[in-house]
């Protein structure tokens, strides 16, 4: 089946088998391998991307469901310079092996965009769909706090 969608501002038209998962489409058809696959039960959040402005787990979306959608992946987040969230993860040492990081960042960006005056508890609750094995989350929480400040200041 033919699908047409926008990824990081670029239009793509491709033929896919209906069962093609969106994450496989991004990784294998478009070679956008920044979006990782960490589980098979929609638990870990490594595959989180933005679809029509919302964070979604691309392992649990069919490409045909995303037909016509506007997608943003980790590769499209930096705009010439790092997004404040990327910078904050860097400054706060919010990553170690880096595997969960793209999904974590995409999730955190939406958490901050959609929330006001996020408490530590809000952030921890907001990240419950993203599993990190390395960091113990603490520096991720700090990074989101720092980025939230930065992003609010930028408005």
């Amino acid at each position, binding site marked *: 089946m033919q699908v047409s969608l926008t990824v990081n501002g670029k239009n793509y038209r491709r033929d896919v088998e209906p069962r093609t998962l969106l994450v496989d489409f991004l990784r294998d058809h478009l070679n956008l391998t920044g979006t990782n696959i960490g589980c*098979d*039960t929609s638990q870990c959040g490594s595959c989180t991307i933005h679809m029509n402005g919302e964070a979604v*787990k691309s392992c*649990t979306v*069919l490409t045909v469901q995303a037909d016509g959608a506007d997608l943003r992946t980790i590769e499209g987040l930096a705009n010439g310079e790092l997004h404040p969230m990327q910078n904050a993860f860097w400054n706060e040492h919010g990553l170690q092996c880096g595997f969960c990081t793209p999904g974590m960042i995409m999730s955190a960006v939406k958490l901050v965009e959609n929330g006001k005056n996020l408490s530590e508890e809000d952030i921890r609750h907001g990240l419950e769909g993203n599993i990190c094995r390395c960091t113990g989350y603490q520096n991720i929480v700090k990074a989101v706090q720092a980025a939230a400040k930065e992003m609010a200041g930028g408005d």
Partner: protein
Amino acid sequence: MYPPKFDYYRAGSVQEALTLRKQHNAKFLAGGHSLLPAMKLRLNDPGALVDIGRIDALKGISEGNGTVTIGALTTHTMVHAAGNLPDILTDAAGWIGDPMVRNRGTVGGNIAHADPASDLPTVFVALRARFHLAGPGGSRVVEADRFFTGLFETALGEDELVTAIEVPARSNQTGSAYAKLFNPASRYAIVGAGAVLTMAGNECTAASVAIGGLTSFSRRAPSVEAALVGRKLDDAALEAAAAQVANDLGDDVMGDIHASADYRRSMAPVFVRRALAQARSRA
């Protein structure tokens, strides 16, 4: 993990969805957050899917005549953010899965799947919600507590589609709440309790209580309700009423590696009490 092959059809309307389903002996695909994981684990191999995700008429929330109607394709995120829904629903929608799951998962898909550990079935039973179903023979309405009939089983026919869910609008005399014991791994409910209390002063004039997570399907707790209505609801009354839930659980309390049946049974009154206390505070 990849889903098995299937034929894919996209419906633009409810009517088209019903027709396509019949033609291809297909299953409906909404947000896909129950169906796709099962297909990836190869626990489900439907052969053909009718994608109803683009039927805009099934999306959104509208209010009128003391009820609120939620389109079947409304996502949990939309429900959580709506602002005009009973607190029990707002809270529960914010506790389903995680933000990404809530952005894709739909209320209609959720109840049609009827996972015993899911939150919304309990909430809708407590709210005495009415489910609007469309089928080849026309549409019908089923009360929530008659809809859930067993483990992953509902009154929904294979050829039927959930189109909307109708719940009572918020009212000043009514308070509602959902209390949930989270599974530490999946975040599903080990026990979920829903309460809707109507109060006149500190006296309860109407009560609707539901329990889920621990039994094969969510159900009303009539013994608890009976112990509430007409009483002044001090803490002791709540505690005593909550304890009645033991009479409403039936004989199908489930156990697994996370929580034994005994544990779940003993958690039922705890969470009923918590839901009641919060509902009372909101009435």
